[in-house]
């Protein structure tokens, strides 16, 4: 019990508790300010809109914990969506094979980023900035700058929008979209990978003291590539979710998502200097961002101001991180 209490109030957990408390507070405030906020379909829509940014947040959490950053996740998401269209629509691969291929494509792209960082020693910020532009360009080239529609594949839309957790008969409106289920499922799997497997251990270890890991006889480069590849694979999942949600791969979409994802991770207590962070924290962070946007929208705050407020939240979260570090 004592240990549980202690871990709750440890510096790392404090940020998570704080983030969770502010999420609850925000929900209460919005619920008071607008009767529309607490409507079941609005809550479901918040969850749905969190799913994509949240999955990207989970992806970037791994990379940030190693002490790196990944700016390419937004446009890579688009590229994997386009590739999913290519695999399924153009090549005619069976849908599940096509999905796996899209995820695999993301993983390969991640591995390339990882190789640039680990082998060529290009700073992650620059390497992934380059990958961001490459992915953006390739998405346009491959798709001919036109959307790829999955209209011939009804099931594709169901991946995201369908629901096998349909509680409509119990609570009217409570139909949890599959995208949300996939998001949470992925969160659990990634949490286990991060905390219970060797890959997760090295993710933290590399972010904490890379040289020490190297001197311990661990092949740091190879593990870094593996971590970036995992992150890329998760981006592939996000690409499937977003394209299935709008039933098409939109090649011009995607840029800007990486910043929301990084913001979610940082708000959730992932330290930009590496070595610290949790999947749960990132998920909470993603919800904070989307609840905020949703609430402001319901209160009819213009979209321009919504963006300004999100910026303020990010700065505040990073400042909290710095305060925490100073102790």
């Amino acid at each position: 019990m004592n240990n549980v209490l202690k871990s709750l109030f440890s510096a790392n957990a404090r940020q998570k508790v704080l983030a969770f408390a502010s999420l609850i507070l925000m929900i209460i405030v919005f619920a008071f300010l607008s009767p529309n906020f607490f409507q079941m379909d609005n809550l479901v829509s918040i969850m749905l809109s969190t799913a994509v940014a949240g999955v990207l947040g989970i992806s970037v959490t791994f990379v940030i914990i190693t002490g790196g950053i990944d700016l390419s996740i937004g446009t890579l998401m688009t590229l994997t969506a386009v590739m999913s269209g290519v695999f399924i629509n153009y090549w005619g691969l069976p849908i599940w094979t096509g999905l796996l291929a899209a995820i695999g494509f993301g993983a390969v792209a991640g591995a390339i980023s990882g190789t640039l960082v680990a082998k060529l020693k290009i700073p992650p910020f620059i390497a992934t900035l380059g990958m961001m532009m490459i992915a953006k360009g390739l998405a346009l080239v491959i798709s001919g700058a036109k959307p790829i529609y999955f209209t011939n594949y009804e099931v594709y839309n169901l991946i995201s929008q369908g629901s096998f957790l349909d509680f409509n008969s119990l609570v009217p409106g409570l139909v949890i979209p599959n995208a949300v289920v996939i998001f949470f499922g992925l969160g659990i799997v990634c949490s286990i990978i991060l905390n219970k497997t060797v890959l997760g251990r090295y993710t933290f270890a590399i972010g904490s003291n890379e040289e020490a890991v190297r001197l311990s006889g661990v092949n740091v480069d190879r593990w870094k590539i593996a971590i970036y590849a995992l992150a890329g694979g998760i981006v592939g999942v996000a690409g499937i979710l977003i394209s299935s949600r709008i039933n098409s791969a939109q090649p011009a979409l995607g840029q800007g998502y990486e910043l929301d994802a990084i913001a979610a991770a940082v708000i959730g207590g992932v330290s930009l200097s590496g070595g610290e962070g949790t999947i749960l924290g990132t998920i909470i962070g993603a919800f904070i961002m989307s609840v905020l946007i949703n609430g402001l929208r319901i209160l009819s705050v213009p979209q321009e101001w919504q963006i300004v407020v999100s910026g303020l939240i990010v700065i505040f979260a990073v400042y909290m991180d710095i305060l925490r570090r100073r102790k």
Partner: protein
Amino acid sequence: MTENLLIRIEDLDKSFPGVQALRKAKFDLRTGEVHALMGENGAGKSTLMKVLAGIYQRDSGTIYLDGKPVEIHGPHGARALGIGIIHQELNLMNHLTAAQNMFIGRERKGRTGILLDEKAMNKAAAEMLAALRVDVDPKVKIGDLTVAKQQMVEIAKALSYESRVLIMDEPTAALNDAEIEELFRLIRDLRNKGVGIVYISHKMDELKRISDRVTVMRDGEYIGTLNTAEATVDQVINMMVGRPLQNYVRSGEGASQQPVALEVRNLNQGRTLKDINFRVHKGEILGFAGLMGAGRTEVARAVFGADPVDSGEVTVLGKKVKIRIPKDAVAAGIGYLSEDRKRFGLALGMDVQANTVMATLSRFLGLGAFLKNKAMAVVSDKYIKTLSIKTPNQTQKLKFLSGGNQQKVVIAKWLLRDCDVLFFDEPTRGIDVGAKFEIYKLLQELAEQGKAIVMISSELPEILRLSHRIVVMCEGRITGEVSAQEATQERIMQLATQRSAK
């Protein structure tokens, strides 16, 4: 004696671009001995040991293990041969626990082969730590442990690879005396179990306490090996620097008749500093002794205005001054030379001249904004000469100077500000033996010129050698003051460990 030679290194050469780091270096190590490896910075000790530990690859020469020549491929290969190394900069991951650190690179997995078996690793780590009589909870994060405990974990980690050879690179650099004692206890235990230990250090007094033999290196070459019991400190120093050093004689005993330059009264700062009172006269060197964490640096920083205080009164040359930020202190004529000159004292990427005038730049401005190059050159040239800073020219970047010469540039910077009171925090940390004596001489000359000097040092011999008076701190309080005449190591250690009754 040759039959129990664990390691023998013959004619080892190693060069880096532009430098021949090792030239026909040799070394040997017996089972169950502590073999000290000494030499100035840049003598090649660490390079030699890094070759042995597989971090560097040699150019030529032979390494014998148990009499058989071996090839060491990388840190992994060294470990497989039973060679472990504890680096000066500890190589631990602060965010991971002690057990996770010890098992990095060879994590134990559960039955599935995928998930980590944390319980098994904690248990095994606890056993290893207990076997060394080290009191550390394997589940505690490394970052939450003291440096001393971190080091114990690192030693336990190295030994868990069945190391027969343990290389320790300046292991006591960050430890206080009690912790050093504990480390030595551990080293003796290991020696008795037959582990061969290479002990790299700068500190002369440790040599006598812990080592069986001592090998001295200079300029990448082997100079000689002595049995510690028969060696004298002077002998070892001579071998290290290649010339006899004249001992410095303390002078200026009459300093206490001079006017008081700095008086600090009733200084309090939270739990770190309690009721600090002291004064230092013109021409006097006041030593601040104490264990690490006793609050000596905090006193200097508080007086200097670098950290906020709860209360305290500062008087400089009879005038009461109010110091809230470092700028106030500098205006009042107080200078502070940080213990970490690389972080707080110097811009390493800039040259000698720029660093020298850094704190007085406003004096070298024409038309309010343009730098007067000639004036700066004249001034920095003057200090290069008076402090005998060894640099090819004043446009040499600081990072290419030795520690001793960097320290001299910091001193020049503060002298240029005409400070009356100078705080020196660990002025010789990371500085070669030879250069240390030059810094000592410089401090003494400054005092003779009428500066008041407060010197904080963790090296007792240094405090004893230079100070006219010594203030001793423990747990944020001043526990005593001794004059140079009555000061002994024992007396100071007694005061430094005089903890308050709780």
